[in-house]
């Protein structure tokens, strides 16, 4: 009898499972209907635009932000003093509607847009800007401190609610770079000490982040997703979409699958292979995804150890940490020969699958106003014979007949330690190509593929000959130019390069009175580096984007900067304002609901059958035993 009851119990639990499945199916179809009708009434405005990313957001404190998702949120939640121009990324009217520079070049006066409000309804005035800038300077806050030129800013004041005056000790065009410091509300953070402001979370559950931008961060599930809600009172006009959401994935494959399944709407892809796959599918018309090749904002560089402790110009850090750099690399002829032996076009074609441009100077082309393009005469191309000739002219010969050139000063083989990044997908492949070319000109390399930790240790202790890493500069060239000044040796200098003329020009570009004057100096600095070759800019890699074009519109006509800009703008809020649902597209995201029910149903059915069999069989065996 006991076993019969057991069998019945199993059957019963199976039945309950089946009923539960049916119940949830009903609940789900009801809620699906409800959301479908909600989206139909919303029409073409509204909807949530969902981005997939593999980069986590750690903080939204504007002074603590570093990673790209953080800047994406801040750019939508806050304003800068000026906007980035949509095409050139130069200063354009924004919060400041116009500005004038005094004849001596040392006083800038900005007219601040009247009638602006913070997202909590409080008035936004010039005093908020003055407070933000002064706090940044007083507390030495953040990543963007140098934009406020602390060395020669005399004062930043707000004589009235609609006027900001910035005076400096020397003429400068720094106030219209534009300064990349987000304006924070004084009425909320005004009483914070330096320590408190640098620890402010700016967003906590239930307390949306208060800024003045077109969107407001209203929800943040750490390590999973974050949601921004449209600000209908934005001074530049209300966005079409009602929400912008970012969902964090761990791998690009899952993200692309989610894009194709309609679970997300947009992504900026790091993977060339996945992008190619999406592109071929979109060309064959088998998906609703449109791909877009954006601007080249980052570059890969090959750096030489330039720390020469015997040089009178050597940086103090280099003298204290002389390291192990091969002295042969301090000979410009060797570096020039290496530069001629590298086929940058092949790197772009084979390593970047064509999604890049051969590299030249350290200010990337997207920063169009300040990017210096070497003249055809100056351009270093790919010419193995020329590279060999340069080395032969400088006295490098293979004296011991082992196929490797010898340094005429020391008699040693030209064999360089070449450090490559294990944490980069392409580090090792780049190294193979370059080592192959260098071998052709009689230079041997000893490659080491190491972790970033190990590479940064080698780099900071000048314990290397050459290495490959990369940079993602801002639209303004000041920071990337600063990394070649001798004062940056031991902090941000890639190579411990030291050149008094370059250092002088760096100061001059900071104090150039107009952007045009500054441009001329910035060009000259890039030219010096291009010819002196402390490092080789190998390539500029392009950003690769994809979005659901069946559902969304308003992105492709609004790329920024021009001509080859981002679909989803990185420095400007423009595309966040123009993106909207395609007419007739549903606002509810795609997805799957049936799978669970199918499985649960099958499981339930199995349990029922097992139960019935048990009842039948146990009944029989009881009889046998009797």
């Amino acid at each position: 009898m006991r076993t019969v009851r057991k069998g019945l119990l199993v059957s019963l639990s199976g039945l309950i499972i089946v009923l539960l499945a049916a119940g949830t199916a009903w609940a789900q179809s009801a809620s699906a209907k409800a959301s479908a009708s909600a989206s139909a009434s919303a029409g073409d405005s509204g909807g949530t635009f969902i981005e997939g990313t593999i980069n986590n957001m750690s903080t939204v404190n504007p002074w603590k932000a570093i990673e790209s998702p953080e800047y994406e949120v801040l750019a939508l939640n806050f304003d800068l003093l000026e906007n980035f121009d949509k095409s050139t990324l130069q200063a354009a009217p924004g919060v400041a509607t116009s500005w004038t520079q005094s004849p001596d070049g040392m006083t800038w006066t900005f007219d601040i847009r009247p009638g602006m409000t913070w997202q909590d309804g409080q008035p936004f005035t010039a005093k908020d800007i003055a407070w933000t800038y002064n706090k940044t300077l007083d507390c030495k806050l953040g990543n963007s401190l140098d934009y406020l030129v602390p060395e020669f800013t005399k004062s930043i004041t707000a004589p009235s609610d609609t006027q900001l005056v910035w005076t400096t000790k020397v003429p400068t065009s720094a106030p219209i770079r534009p300064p990349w410091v987000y304006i924070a509300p004084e009425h909320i953070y005004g009483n914070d000490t330096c320590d408190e402001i640098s620890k402010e979370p700016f967003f906590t559950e239930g307390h949306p982040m208060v800024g003045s931008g077109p969107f407001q961060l209203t929800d943040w599930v750490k390590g999973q997703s974050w949601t921004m809600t449209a600000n209908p009172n934005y001074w530049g006009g209300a966005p079409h979409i009602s929400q912008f959401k970012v969902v964090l994935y761990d791998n690009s494959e899952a993200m692309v699958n989610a894009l194709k399944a309609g679970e997300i709407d947009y992504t900026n892809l790091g993977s060339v292979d996945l992008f190619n796959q999406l592109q071929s599918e979109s060309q064959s018309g088998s998906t609703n995804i449109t791909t877009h090749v954006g601007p080249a904002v980052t570059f890969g560089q090959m750096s030489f150890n330039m720390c020469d402790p015997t040089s009178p110009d050597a940086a103090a850090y280099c003298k204290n940490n002389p390291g192990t750099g091969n002295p042969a690399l301090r000979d410009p002829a060797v570096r020039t020969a290496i530069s001629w032996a590298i086929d940058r076009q092949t790197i772009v074609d084979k390593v970047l699958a064509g999604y890049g441009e051969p590299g030249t100077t350290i200010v990337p082309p997207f920063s169009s106003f300040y990017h210096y393009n070497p003249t055809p005469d100056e351009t270093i191309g790919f010419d193995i014979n020329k590279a060999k000739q340069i080395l032969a002219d400088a006295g490098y010969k293979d004296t011991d007949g082992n196929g490797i050139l010898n340094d005429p000063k020391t008699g040693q083989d030209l064999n360089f330690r070449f450090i490559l990044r294990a944490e980069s997908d392409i580090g090792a492949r780049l190294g193979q190509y370059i080592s192959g070319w260098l071998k052709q000109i009689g230079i041997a390399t000893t490659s080491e593929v190491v972790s970033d930790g190990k590479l940064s240790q080698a780099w900071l202790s000048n314990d290397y000959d050459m290495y490959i890493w990369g940079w993602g500069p801002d639209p303004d060239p000041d920071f990337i130019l600063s990394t070649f000044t001798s004062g940056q040796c031991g902090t941000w200098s890639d190579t411990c390069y030291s050149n008094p003329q370059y250092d002088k020009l760096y100061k001059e570009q900071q104090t150039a009175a107009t952007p045009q004057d500054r441009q001329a100096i910035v060009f000259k600095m890039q030219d010096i580096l291009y010819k002196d070759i402390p490092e080789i800019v190998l390539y500029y890699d392009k950003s690769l984007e994809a979005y659901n074009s069946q559902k969304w519109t308003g992105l492709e006509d609004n790329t920024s900067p021009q001509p080859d800009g981002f679909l989803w703008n990185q420095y400007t809020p423009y595309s966040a304002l123009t993106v909207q649902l395609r007419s007739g597209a549903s606002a509810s995201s795609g997805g799957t609901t049936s799978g669970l029910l199918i499985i649960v149903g099958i499981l339930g059915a199995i349990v029922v059958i097992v139960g019935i069999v048990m009842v039948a069989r146990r009944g029989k065996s009881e009889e046998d035993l009797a």
Partner: protein
Amino acid sequence: MGTAKYLLGKLGQLFITLILVLSLAFLLFRVWQPGDPVATWAKASGAKLNAEQLDQIRHEWGLDVPLPRQYVSYMGQMLTFNFGTSTILNPQESVSSMFWSRMAKSAILIVTSTFAAIAIGVLLGIYGGWKRQGKVDQASMSSSMILYAMPEFVLGMIFILIFAATLHWFPVSLYESPIPKTGLSHWTDVINHMALPWLTLTLAYVGEFYLVMRSSLLDVLGEEYIALARAKGVREKYVLRKHAVPNALLPTITLVALSFGFILSGVITVELVFSYPGVGKLSVDALRQRDFAVLQATFVISVIAVLLANFIADLTYAYLDPRVRRA
């Protein structure tokens, strides 16, 4: 008396192992890490901070004091379960709260799938060992071999390919839909998202439990006391239930405890494949972004979990087999 001594001995071993592992973790994360963690983090993340600001961060991370002092404060923190605040992933946030909010999501996966794997594996193993070479045994033997040999991430990717990308029965990844649902739909949505990772973890470990249970039962069934029981005329089912299975379970319990560590590492790969926001993903995020506070915490808590699982296995063992207590 013997039991108390046995218990104390095991507890002592547990504590010594814990101290050793914690010291090893300190060496791993603080001493043997090449490079200055602040400089590496800054360069890799693109933080454009000046030298003075970088020094400030070194101070905030507690890296500007000598190593022996770092070690003492580290041990104090770890043994009191005070894991400090996150440095990079979510600055100022307490590591414990980050950990527990993720742990809840992982725990559901780990506990339910482990129990399911044990139940299915052990029951099939008993049946297979009992009805050796039967149809059920042959079928479960070959599928167990395949599941046992296959890494979790491959299994997960196969499921994504079949059930998510092709059949669209289940979502590809995540814990819930990008636009969250409410009420009952929220929970079906969550279960729906959990289904494939759960299935992957369960099936990945079924094979192991099946194989061990089956072979151990076969060993026991060949013992003389089983033959004696049968000769006495004890019914076959009674022989199995009272004489064979309890003895055959011993090696399986060891395996369950041992495999707890493997399941924890399996969860990491499965969570990554499905972008499922649990502890495994948290530890990988911490590793990627070099958040040493979080990394240490996940490491230490995983170690403690494995040690505890082994401790419990020892106790169960002693309970099931009195000889262990006396030895």
